[in-house]
């Protein structure tokens, strides 16, 4: 099995990104530090697809540990010029039927938005994380790229449902992804988020809203100030958890090991210095800092409290609305940039995507915009996207 380039794809197959494990296949999460690591087992989502007769034809490049904007900082796939996510681009090209990606800090959703395909980050706990190279356990979730809502429904029906091997997996065996009538539904646009986007992006959101209105959906523009603090909280939690989860890559057991060491401390330091890129190192430092004794209470612990406040606030909002409509990115394309700027860029850009990771709600990207709903509201989100997509056909 090989990493994808457009020529070698089979149109009926499924691609998975390189943070999802397949037995006996190299899995690197886009990082030099995992070079040569082969998994002894397959992820639950992979097993479920294979059991249903789907063919998995290959893996797609990801940015190192999925920490960047759209996959631009993969050790194995340097990008220049206009950036795009590998999995989303494949799906957009029609080279594969669908792709799986791990949504941890918005990379997948931004990729889908840039390439004009759909991506669903499901409700936390509905899809098994067994066999996912984990960074931020409390908010990451395997999601599906597809050309449209129907394609996402098809794959979600296969991969979602309880898994004993994942302690965070919810007990239900299956969930509702049906596409239903949406007339009478109510959607809100968040003013604060819309203002952060450029005109072209704003136009996309407004066009999507108009299309919904034409189908009997009420769309209001409202004000909600939770997204900024939600983003800060998620960047803190995500960095802390990532710092902890990548600490196992130390050169002792597998993956890259520096050739320059005389003792165990040098083995650790040199391996990790060589193995991680600048962005990962920045996240490790940031995560380590927010967990340190002096900062824990003001940073990490406070972020957990913010998570509770945001969760209550958003669910309160969802009593009046069926979905939240927002941009996914601040603009419609990204140009290649220096990795030293990455941490701040990703931090700021994630304001659109973080809330869904922080509080575990589903988020669906379609037509370059994002729909979020309360937990287990995937069916509503897919139905809303479906009605707009159908109109476009």
């Amino acid at each position, binding site marked *: 099995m090989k990493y994808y380039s457009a020529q070698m794809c089979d149109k009926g197959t499924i691609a998975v990104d390189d943070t999802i494990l397949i037995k006996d296949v190299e*899995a690197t999460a886009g990082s030099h530090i995992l070079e040569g690591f082969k998994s*002894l087992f397959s992820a639950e989502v992979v097993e479920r697809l294979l059991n249903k007769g789907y063919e998995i034809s290959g893996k797609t490049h990801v940015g190192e540990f999925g920490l960047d904007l759209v996959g631009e900082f993969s050790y194995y796939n340097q990008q220049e010029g206009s950036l795009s996510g590998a999995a989303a681009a494949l799906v957009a090209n029609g080279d594969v039927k669908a792709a799986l990606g791990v949504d941890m800090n918005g990379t997948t959703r931004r990729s889908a938005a840039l390439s004009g395909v759909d991506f669903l980050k499901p409700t936390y706990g509905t899809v098994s994380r*067994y066999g996912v190279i*984990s960074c931020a356990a409390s908010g990451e979730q395997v999601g599906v790229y597809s050309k449209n809502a129907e394609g996402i429904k098809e794959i979600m029906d296969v991969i979602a449902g309880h898994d*004993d091997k*994942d302690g965070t997996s919810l007990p239900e065996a299956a969930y509702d992804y049906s596409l239903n009538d949406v007339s009478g539904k109510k959607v809100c646009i968040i003013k604060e988020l819309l203002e952060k986007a450029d005109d072209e992006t704003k136009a996309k959101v407004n066009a999507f809203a108009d299309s919904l209105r034409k189908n009997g959906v009420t769309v209001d523009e409202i004000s909600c100030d939770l997204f900024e603090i939600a983003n800060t909280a998620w960047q803190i939690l995500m960095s802390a958890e990532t710092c902890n989860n990548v600490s196992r890559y130390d050169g002792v057991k597998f993956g890259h090991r520096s050739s320059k060491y005389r003792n*165990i401390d040098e083995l*650790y330091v040199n391996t990790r210095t060589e193995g991680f890129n600048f962005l990962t190192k920045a996240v490790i430092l940031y995560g380590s800092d927010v967990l340190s004794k002096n900062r824990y209470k003001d940073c*990490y612990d406070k972020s957990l409290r913010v998570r509770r406040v945001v969760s209550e606030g958003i669910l309160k909002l969802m009593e009046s609305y069926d979905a939240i409509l927002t941009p996914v990115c601040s603009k419609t394309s990204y140009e290649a940039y220096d990795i030293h700027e990455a941490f701040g860029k990703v931090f700021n850009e994630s304001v659109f995507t973080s809330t869904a990771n922080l509080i575990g709600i589903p988020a669906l990207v379609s037509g370059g915009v994002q729909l979020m709903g309360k937990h287990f509201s995937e069916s509503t989100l897919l139905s809303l996207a479906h009605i707009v997509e159908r109109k476009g056909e």
Partner: protein
Amino acid sequence: MNYEIVIGLETHVELSTESKIFCSCGGHSAAKEPNDCVCPACSGMPGMLPVMNKRVVELAVTAGLMLNCNINRYTTFDKKNYYYPDLPCAYQITQLNHPICTDGCVTLKTSGGNRDIRIKQIHMEEDAGKLVHGGNSSFVDFNRTSVPLIEIVTQPDFRSAEEVVTYLNKLKSMFRSGGISECEEGAMRCDVNISVRPEGSEEFGVRTEIKNMSSFEAIERAIRYESQRHIDAIEFETEELVQETRRFDDVSGKTMAMRNKETEADYRYFPDANLMPIIIDDEWLEEIKANKPVAVDEKVEEYLAAGISDKEIDMLISNNKISSLLEDTVKLGCNTRDAATWILTDCAGVLRKDGKSFDDLVITAEKLAVIIKMVNDGTINRNAGKKVLIAVVENGADPVSYCKEQGLDRKVDTAAIESVIDKVISQNPQAIEDFKNGKTKAAQALFGACMRELKGAGDPSAIKELLDNKLKNM
């Protein structure tokens, strides 16, 4: 000036579970070769998630009940970060914020009377692996990684090394009899926090911690050395005491500094998002309570009432196997005192002869009860009973058939005895002559000859009666 020694203890105990704490690998002592009890989860490979072993929760709660703790119905896990090659994930899953048990108490019987030691908390955690050093290399053995541990933390309530050792012995016997841990060498490890203050003072002195000791004898020596070092520092200003972590060197009998507070690691504890909080509801707690073995103290009362000595009680409560053998034997209708002697004296004798311990004892309560009953109802005498016991313990013999084969059964029929007596009389004309001449000793000799001929079978008093009748009628 007189000084008071103040000691608090952190004791790690390996739990006797069949599998590890977060994966299905074989648990404590299942491994034979290095790294043969290892899976992707306990060797830190990416993609694996921890799944809680329910039995660990049950054993931790049982330990908490034995130590009179509050059982916290909501309990969570945290990650403790540090790098070491024997820690595959570079973090240990443990409990910081919501430990499973808190605020317990245990009463010690010491030479100075009863002493109450407060238990601050009990928490669950995973063990680390092991490094093996050889030549220029070091090797990592992950068999022990993720073996479940409980850590029992006391308040600084101990005032002497003697109290500490009494406490540890008590934990050991409780946990062995409760099936919580075998507590063998290395499965119980202690960190000792120690400080010294003038007698009567309320303030604590400078505290040092001696890490990772497993032999009780070493713990006792370490405490004696360290407390004297503190006293000397205060009394004679031999050195300035600093808060630090030390280790005990078994050879020199001294403690040495490992690291002081300034350079102490920041473990960056935080909640483990892969493990959901554990909720212990009433139903589960009642179930654990119902399955909890009888508390050691209640057992001790029972044994004392049955006339069992202190020394024997110590043997019984420190070994789950023999105390259950005793209980089962008693259930089959044997007297407690009787059964205790058979187990603690006779079985122990057989094992000692073969250089074995109680752990090697192979005998069912059923077989033991049969032997005891045969002796008590006169089927065999006590010496014969011992012979049977040896055959059962050493070769797994069946007691009843063994007695028959060896002719130990004293219930030999009268005709057989009479024919033996007749034979003895005909072979000993001189003795008969002496008897007739009034030498009563001759009767004694004839009786001995009969017994030899019968090889110990038959009831001696019955044989004597038959022989006397024969002689009288001559």
